[in-house]
């Protein structure tokens, strides 16, 4: 039992969790508004889009790769979908939007997957390049402009409340849109895929040692290929969620999110070298970043200082996690010794 607890504290998640709680307490003390139902709901709804992106990135990192193209990919597929539905005067259910966007996302992801999986090219370079290409297609070929009106099905889906939280003292009411269910669903599915399917274990195996994975009989190329397709699909679903929630489509709004998402995932203990990390850590790390970005005013940090604050949190956060993982890897070695 003791060993189990020790093991838990050798990982990153409890520390990130502690930081989140601590920060929450500080916000609570400063504003009295942290542990209120509506604030929690606000944070959760701010988490939806980044959370989905983080899960997609998480897979890429676990397999020892990286993806910096997902914002461009999501923008392109979400834009194309919304535009298409608008042009066809589509009035129906949001489902079709998801189906189309996910299909486009799968195709775009397959492009990444082909180069990274089958041609075995460097993931960073490929996705850097494909991000430019996706953006170019969106703005050049499709001549993307902001779409201020979106199909009614998407709009009602984005504004419908799955959960409504009212703050009794000030009467403020926040809603958690149905898109949150998508986040939970994707989370659950990914947990299942990564833990209970051979494909998912293959992703971990490839991240640990691609050559061994090959010799053990995994189809490394195909696994990577399918994985990048899945990343494309999740990112696109996220793009549609965002459009629905914002009730407008802005083609370049999401670009540039990739670095903060990667920072969040790594903060949660996912190794950039591949193979190591948990979905819980990934979600916690991302949540920490979201929390920081969305608590600046509650904390009373002046707008001028906000970038400094975010920078400090990232620097201190990753320093702590790096220090802590160095420490545990050392102590692990020692305990092996003592055991022998």
């Amino acid at each position, binding site marked *: 039992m003791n060993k189990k607890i020790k093991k838990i504290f050798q990982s990153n998640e409890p520390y990130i969790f502690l930081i989140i709680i601590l920060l929450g307490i500080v916000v609570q003390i400063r504003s009295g508004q942290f542990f209120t139902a509506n604030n929690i709901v606000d944070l959760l709804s701010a988490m939806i889009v980044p959370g989905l992106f983080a899960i997609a990135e998480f897979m890429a990192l676990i397999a020892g790769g990286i993806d910096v193209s997902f914002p461009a990919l999501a923008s392109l597929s979400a834009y194309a979908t919304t535009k298409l539905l608008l042009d066809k005067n589509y009035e129906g259910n949001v489902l079709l939007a998801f189906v189309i966007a996910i299909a486009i996302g799968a195709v775009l992801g397959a492009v990444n997957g082909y180069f990274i999986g089958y041609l075995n090219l460097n993931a960073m370079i490929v996705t850097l390049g494909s991000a430019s290409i996706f953006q170019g297609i969106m703005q050049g070929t499709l001549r993307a402009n902001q779409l201020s009106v979106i199909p009614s099905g998407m709009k009602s889906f984005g504004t419908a409340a799955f959960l409504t939280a009212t703050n009794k003292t000030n009467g403020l009411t926040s809603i958690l849109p149905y898109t949150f269910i998508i986040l939970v669903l994707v989370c659950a599915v990914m947990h299942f895929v990564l833990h209970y399917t051979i494909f998912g274990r293959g992703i971990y195996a490839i991240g640990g040692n691609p050559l061994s994975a090959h010799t053990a009989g995994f189809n490394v190329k195909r696994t990577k290929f399918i994985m990048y397709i899945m990343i494309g699909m999740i990112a696109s679903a996220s793009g549609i969620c965002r459009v629905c929630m914002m009730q407008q489509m802005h083609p370049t709004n999401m670009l540039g999110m990739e670095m903060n998402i990667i920072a969040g995932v790594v903060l949660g203990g996912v190794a950039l070298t591949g193979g190591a990390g948990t979905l819980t850590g990934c979600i916690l790390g991302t949540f920490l970043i979201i929390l920081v970005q969305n608590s600046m005013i509650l904390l009373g940090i002046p707008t001028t200082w906000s970038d400094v604050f*975010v*920078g400090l949190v990232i620097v201190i956060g*990753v320093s702590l996690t790096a220090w802590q993982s160095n420490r545990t890897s050392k102590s692990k070695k020692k305990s092996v010794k003592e055991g022998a």
Partner: protein
Amino acid sequence: MNKIKSIYKKNEEVTRLLIIMAFWLIFMAFTQAKKFYTGMNFLTMAGQFPEYGLMALGGMLCMITGGIDLSVVGAANMTSILTVFTLTRFFGADGTMPLAFSVVIFIIAIVVGIIVGSLNAFLISRLGVPPILATLGVNELLTGLCVVMTNGSAISSFPKQYCDFFSGNLLGFIPRRLLVFIIVAIIIWFMLEHCTYGTKLRLYGTNAHVAKFSGINTTKLLFRTYITSSICAALGGLMMLATYSSARADYGTNYTMQSILLVVLGGVSPNGGKGKISGVITAIVLLKMIESGINRFRSVSTYYVTLIWGAVLILALVIDYVSQKPKHAK
């Protein structure tokens, strides 16, 4: 024939890019000869790339170690803002600055570079933070500080003698900024090819663990690398200051990704251990030509610049893949 082959083999990255460049130049000659092949155009291009070219040169060193520097733009803006503050402090907002004072300006850049680079290197080598995160955080921090110092607005009233001089041309046709770029490029080339630093850098990038076992002072190496990168970025900031005669916290935010793109296109492996300055310089020039060329086509949206950059990047990799396809690759 064999000789040509071996030269190609030795300089694959450069040759590859030169071939693409040749095709582009021919294409431009057929389509936009009058607008593209003008002295003015080449002069403009030569004046434009030093600011981010410098950032790419420094970023290249970091990438050879297997790291990355995302703090270049922060360092650049911090430098130009500090410079402007210093100038107003010494000479007043409308004073005149003796040109010799430029030396002080360059010293400011070097000091900023040393501080920022040391911070990056400290986080990476001492605390073991992954470079991508360390430099990302530092960049955010620097940008934040710039906003705090300037309140976010641009500063443009300060003595402009430095700007006038460095935005001008030597002998009327050599942009002085280009000279700065060339000097820095030569220094870095010398460091890589004629100092032990280059060998250590490549070997460290191949395997940091073995480097430690071999007695390389890895901490010192990282400090040197990230400091050089930040100094290059700071000089890039000075070039921006010269061009735009003003300083602001968010100038050139696109240059972070752009400089990485250039470095990678120049044949530097993001995994480290491989990279030549010739490749990066060719990439810088090539991309400038493509961008400038596309701006000549009114009917072609400038968005295609992004598209073409991405395509060129992947194309370069694919050419690589096809030309040395290992038969039994897994």
